[in-house]
């Protein structure tokens, strides 16, 4: 009976993450509008670049807490050829902070060094299996997902012990295996549209 109970718990744990894009899977392509310049940006996996796709938003305090860190990482790794895409999947009809105009204001005032894209029907977040903001995905040059989860294990710099995002990028840039391929993405639940 006890064994059955343990097996049930394991199945429950597996089910809880079953909808997340598996590490090793092909990353979904997307074509989304950038709130800053109104232009459409397309991400085509296997474009020969390492790419960071991350889901974020205007309203989540935890996403905002990681904003300076993501800007710093993007500037550092863009210089090494890594592409960054910030995507806001939240429903702007229910949460006015998430309109294109407010997204643009935030991106401009904070000096985002990456496009801030609107996932207008939350379909890209669903395709990636994102659950929260911030939720980070690292895709290799061949379009394969190599890491998903958090930026770091703490938003408090002094308490940071694990740097999931930069560890994955450093591994890919030096042709090493990514040691930790999935971490716990804490944050605000995505405000799904539809």
């Amino acid at each position, binding site marked *: 009976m006890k064994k059955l*109970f343990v097996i049930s718990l394991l199945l429950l744990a597996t089910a809880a*993450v079953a909808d997340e894009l598996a590490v090793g899977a092909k990353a979904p392509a997307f074509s989304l509008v950038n709130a800053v310049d109104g232009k459409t940006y397309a991400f085509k996996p296997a474009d020969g670049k390492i790419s960071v796709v991350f889901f974020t938003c205007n309203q989540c*305090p*935890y996403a905002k807490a990681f904003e300076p860190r993501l800007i710093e990482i993007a500037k550092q790794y863009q210089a090494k050829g890594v592409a960054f895409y910030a995507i806001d999947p939240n429903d702007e009809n229910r949460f006015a902070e998430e309109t294109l105009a407010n997204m643009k204001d935030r991106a401009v005032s904070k000096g985002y060094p990456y496009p801030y894209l609107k996932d207008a029907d939350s379909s890209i977040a669903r395709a990636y299996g994102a659950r929260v903001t911030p939720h980070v995905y690292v895709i290799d040059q061949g379009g394969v997902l190599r890491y998903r989860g958090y930026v770091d294990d*703490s938003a408090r710099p002094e308490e940071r012990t694990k740097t999931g995002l930069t560890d994955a990028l450093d591994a890919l840039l030096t042709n090493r295996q990514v040691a930790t391929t999935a971490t716990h993405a804490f*944050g605000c639940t995505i405000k799904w549209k539809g």
Partner: protein
Amino acid sequence: MRAFALFAAFCLSLTPTQAANLVEVKEPARIADAFSPRSSLRLMNVWATWCVPCVEEMNDLRAIDATFGPEVSIVGVSLDDMIPGDRAATRRKVVAFLDQKKINYSNVYYSGNNDALADALRFSGEIPITIVYDRDGHELWRQQGKLDRRKTIAEIRKLLRRTR
């Protein structure tokens, strides 16, 4: 019946909340210390003041607390410490929030490592999450995301029948 309900609501409004006793916990294993040892079931709810669905379900948790009384010990685990800033000020903010919401079930202020908590509770990091344990700490039920008051009460009734 209506008079009784009004009297009960009045008494509840006079009862000091548990918020002032908000204990800081750094180790996930210490969260269990906040449960009442006499209860048949233990309900843990992981939340934060900045989490919209977490705040929305607090009235449901109050109702669950009122429905089952000491048979079900509820402990809220605040993750407000995740946001950088002055720790003492954040803790005071959580206390004020719990007071304002008139929350009478126990709460702890978690200031430990996120990974350690996610590993201990076997969850992805998405909140709210509600987990029900028996008095020996075995998990019986969990709800990822906002809970449904009626379904949760029905589930707890079922679990109580099983554990009695």
